[in-house]
């Protein structure tokens, strides 16, 4: 029916969520979510607070496995190898080595800037100084932080400003060469200028990686994303090209939310 709908399914797909259900104990937090992530595109997850955006995002890298009482069913297939990220036989460590995550609040380790950036390499057992140095520079450049920190790589990460800390966390996530980057409201604690620079960064990053980003900021979703998924009360209400979702949403609930008629 909808011609653009058909177009999405013809794009290269990096990952697919299929019939995903999630329970926090007895609470059914995600209900039968099915959606694709197109390769090297930015997909935004929007929706009112508590609708399950973070829950869905954190399912991709099996963060929920860290806590008892969480149950989930369904599949998240990662292409091209068709690995089901949620399969109990797939080691969550393998999943986390392929998908990186940036959290809402910057969470640098209380170590030096350098040690933060290369931590992903450290856990992989890389010890060669030259390799680590190259990785650190590459990732810090990609996160637009290199110029600010190149002379103080061995200072504590806490000495950085909030925006710099968040870019450090992005660099840390990039230094593992992930196939997919997961962002959970990465700019919600930052000022507009830093936010703009991080949005610019996301724009550049999608040349190389597939990005899934949770955001509360409609303008941000409109600016950075190619696709948007609107979630409400644990359900995926609508998924499509960002322009379509914003200009002519098909669902009344999406329209209410986007136009701000919604709490």
């Amino acid at each position, binding site marked *: 029916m909808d011609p653009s709908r058909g177009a999405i399914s013809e794009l290269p797909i990096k990952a697919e969520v299929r019939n995903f259900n999630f329970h926090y104990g007895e609470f059914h937090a995600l209900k039968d979510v099915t959606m694709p992530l197109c390769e090297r595109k930015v997909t935004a997850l929007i929706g009112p607070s508590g609708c399950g955006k973070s829950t869905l995002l954190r399912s991709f890298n099996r963060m929920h496995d860290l806590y008892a009482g969480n149950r989930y069913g369904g599949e998240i297939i990662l292409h091209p190898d068709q690995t089901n990220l949620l399969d109990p036989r797939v080691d969550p460590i393998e999943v986390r080595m392929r998908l990186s995550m940036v959290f809402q609040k910057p969470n640098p*380790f209380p170590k030096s800037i350098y040690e933060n950036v290369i931590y992903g390499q450290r856990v992989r057992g890389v010890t060669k100084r030259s390799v680590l140095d190259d990785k650190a520079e590459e990732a810090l450049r990609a996160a637009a932080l290199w110029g600010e920190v190149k002379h103080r790589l061995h200072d504590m990460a806490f000495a950085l400003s909030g925006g710099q800390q968040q870019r450090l966390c992005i660099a840390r996530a990039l230094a*593992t060469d992930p196939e997919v980057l997961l962002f959970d409201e990465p700019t919600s604690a930052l000022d507009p200028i830093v936010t703009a620079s991080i949005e610019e960064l996301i724009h550049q990053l999608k040349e190389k990686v597939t990005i899934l980003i949770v955001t509360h900021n409609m303008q941000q979703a409109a600016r950075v994303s190619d696709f948007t998924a609107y979630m409400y009360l644990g359900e995926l209400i609508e998924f499509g090209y960002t322009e379509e979702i914003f200009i002519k949403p098909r669902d009344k609930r999406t329209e209410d939310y986007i136009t701000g008629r919604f709490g």
Partner: protein
Amino acid sequence: MSSSAPSDVALIRAEIRRRKRRDLWFGALGVLALALALLTVVTLFINMLIDGWARLTPEFFTSFPSRRAGQAGILSAWVGSLLVMLVTASVAVPLGVAAGIWLEEYAPKHWLTDIIEININNLAGVPSIIYGLLALGLFVYTFGLGQSIRTAGLTLALLILPMIIVATREAIRGIPQSIREGAYALGATRWQMVRHHILPYSMPGIFTGVIIGMARAIGETAPIITIGALTFIAFLPPAPLVGTPPFVNFEWLSAPFTVMPIQIFNWTSRPEAAFQQNAAAASVILVAMTLMMNGLAIWLRYRLRKNLKW
């Protein structure tokens, strides 16, 4: 409305004065309570210092106990205390820290771990003589470890183990979950997370717990008497380090021993005033050692925590 404003302001000010008076009262009460507690301790210490002053000479540290008070010293006592503490620390610290980490980071959270948790907290409150009796039955009679330095060290290790476990767990709980998630999200295994993050960041808290535990252990008397420390020892245990390969010697572990509090106890039970002076002098040294350990704990915590703010 504006005409009534001045009287309102006066009312508000009176109200604030009234409440602030109570503030003052509580402040004064607090200072009084603190002064009373401090004064008691300081008076006791000064009293001991005056009594023992004449005996605080270098020879006091290098002489064995003697029938003549004027020649008696604390050599065997402080060496004994030091060696016992060495055993205590090398047993209690790894065990306590490992147990604390396991309980916080590895143990599944269910009723069994709840019971373990409650019991560890209870263990910290068990009177120390009970540990002495347990050690006598277990280490001395069952395992045949003798009335030795290693038995004493193990006994005190048992005594402070719960303190170290509790301190370790407290320190670990202070580490925000976001740090754990950050490490896991980069592909760390649980052990890497513990090794790279949990251990280093909880170190200040663990150190403090260890030192305070050791300060408690060094003054313990009851369990040491129970396992049969000697009160009169005029020789030193074999030296742990020797000049010939393999350079270390573990015979000291099975040597009979005495420790500072027992030496003090022994002297105070003597009728002669000269021995009371010895007891006072030894007590000053023991208190000074404890205070120094506590001071070290505070300093270490301050130093190590400087880089950890979340």
